[in-house]
């Protein structure tokens, strides 16, 4: 193994070591929070990318699962006393099982029904959170028991927890990318008919990808409920969360392992700065509108995302597909 190859495989260790070491160097509360949010968004974007990027099915349900995760975790904590940081992975499993049902309804057929069903699902969960007042507390929300510990230590705890979830999400994304399962998903994205023809059970593949995707949204929602010590139908289903997952993935590069991570690490700090800088009366509205503008601009002018675009600029190598056929063979084949 030469040095180049070692770097190519092991480079993620460098930022990882830095991120693990950062809190020991007196990171203040503001920066701890900033990183916590960035990790949360990055993990959810990596999750969204599995169904939205690998398989090419736009899911608007991940926001619904974020909220569902918040409520399931909040309710089990307040009624049964189960600590959220321990139950979060199981809350994710509950979300994945619900995702299987939703996926079964929406993914049996190809085409537009998936986006409709996933959007409707998000509305339904929010609707139930708002209207099942006896269980969820309605619009007043649900106050959760506090984690009693030193505030800075608490910040560290959430920092490392979501860093762990982010590392897991990246590991899962790499694993899927290198497996037959991942190849199948990409085949579905490129040409679902042919994928099915070559023996891939497309329905099962899509549903499993959707379940994995929603597991991460559910876990993030659960942890966030504890972070806020509070759940309500507005915060748990804030549209900007869904928009962020999508814009971050698209900006970084859809369908790549590292794209969503890159997108989150660029966009979240920028947005915090923007919201901090804008007058507070219109900050939320301008934030939403600008994110919408960014989404339209990326879709129109850089749909491949930063990572792929940069790769093309730096490598300057024609894609291998074109190299495989010698130029003269290509011309002589022409009638």
């Amino acid at each position: 193994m030469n040095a180049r190859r070692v770097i190519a495989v092991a480079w993620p260790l460098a930022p990882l070591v830095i991120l693990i070491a950062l809190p020991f160097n007196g990171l203040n509360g503001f920066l701890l929070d900033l990183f916590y949010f960035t990790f949360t968004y990055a993990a959810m974007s990596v999750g969204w990318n599995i169904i939205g990027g690998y398989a090419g099915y736009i899911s608007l349900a991940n926001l619904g699962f974020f909220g569902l995760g918040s409520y399931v975790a909040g309710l089990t904590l307040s009624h049964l006393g189960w600590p959220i940081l321990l139950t979060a992975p199981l809350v994710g499993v509950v979300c994945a099982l619900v995702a299987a049902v939703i996926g079964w309804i929406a993914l049996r057929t190809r085409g537009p029904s998936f986006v409709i069903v996933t959007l409707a699902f998000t509305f339904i969960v929010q609707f139930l959170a708002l209207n099942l007042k006896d269980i969820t507390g309605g619009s007043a929300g649900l106050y959760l028991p506090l984690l009693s510990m030193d505030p800075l230590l608490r910040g560290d705890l959430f920092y490392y927890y979501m860093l762990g979830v982010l590392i897991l999400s990246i590991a899962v994304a790499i694993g899927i990318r290198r497996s037959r399962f991942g190849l199948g998903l990409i085949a579905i994205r490129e040409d679902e008919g042919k994928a099915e023809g070559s023996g891939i059970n497309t329905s099962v593949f899509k549903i499993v990808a959707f379940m994995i995707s929603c597991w991460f949204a559910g876990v993030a929602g659960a942890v966030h409920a504890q972070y806020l010590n509070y759940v309500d139908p507005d915060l748990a289903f804030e549209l900007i969360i869904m928009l962020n997952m999508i814009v971050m993935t698209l900006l970084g590069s859809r369908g790549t392992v590292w794209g969503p991570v890159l997108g989150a690490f660029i966009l979240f700090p920028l947005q915090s700065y923007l919201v901090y800088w804008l007058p507070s009366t219109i900050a939320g509205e301008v934030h939403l509108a600008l994110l919408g503008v960014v989404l339209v601009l990326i879709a129109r002018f850089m749909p491949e995302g930063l990572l792929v675009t940069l790769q093309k600029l730096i490598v300057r190598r024609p894609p291998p597909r074109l190299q495989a056929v010698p130029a003269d063979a290509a011309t002589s084949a022409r009638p």
Partner: protein
Amino acid sequence: MLLLQGLVLGVLVGGMYALMASGLTLIFGVMRLINIAHAAVIIFASYLSWQLLRVLGIDPLISIVILVVVFFIGGALLQKYVLSALIDKDLSLALLATLGVANVLEGMEGALWTSSFHAINTGYSDQTYHFGDVYVPLIRIITFVASVIILAGLYVLLTHTNLGRAIRATTQNRAIAQLVGVNVNRITMIAFGIGIAVAAAAGPLMGMYYPFYPNSHWGWIGKLMAIVVLGGLGSFRGTLVAALILGVAEQVTILYVPANWAATVFFVFLFAVLIVRPQGFFGHVARESL
């Protein structure tokens, strides 16, 4: 008698639902695109109509004419310069672009008109008529009649003009439409513009009927999607029938359960249709579209 009341109000509101959803189904037909921004466009038109009434004293029914022209041009430009390039490349990008447009409109409305709710109040807003035991607010009759007139115009446009024939041909089979000499790119642009213009026409009517606020379009797009799925995506007639069915179902439900639960009617229909018959109940996209 209560049931008759629900039936009458259901048909009246169903007419407006049909108008709101018909643009969505038209756009899906020619572009295979779910326009997530559709309800946001309607709400935006409601705000503009509110502003025109407030500042210039223009009646909302008159402002429909202005808004239709402006929104047709805006829609056609959006299609030509943003969406058409995406449709050819990757339909999901076009879908995400409409999601972006929805958020731009919502954020802009919030910044311009605050997030508290607005309603379009005209001098005739509060009158109510009684027919035996059935009471009918005047505003509901007006919105229904206006919706029916606009839908009838759209129907004539689609069935009795060359433009309409070209739009229907493009909906049914893009490649063959092109083969027989239809300029499908131009037709797609015009059809998208018409879809947005119809949404603009629905805006003032919706604003007279219901209060609105910047993010209320999310509730509406859910309802509109339920309507177009029940009607069979891309089918104009199907959408009209589905809108009436869901309008009546909603208004009858309101009589028996608290009003906020009536919205579930749409979701129940949506999921039932997708489980039982994913292609909708009124023909199939590829086979029949008008």
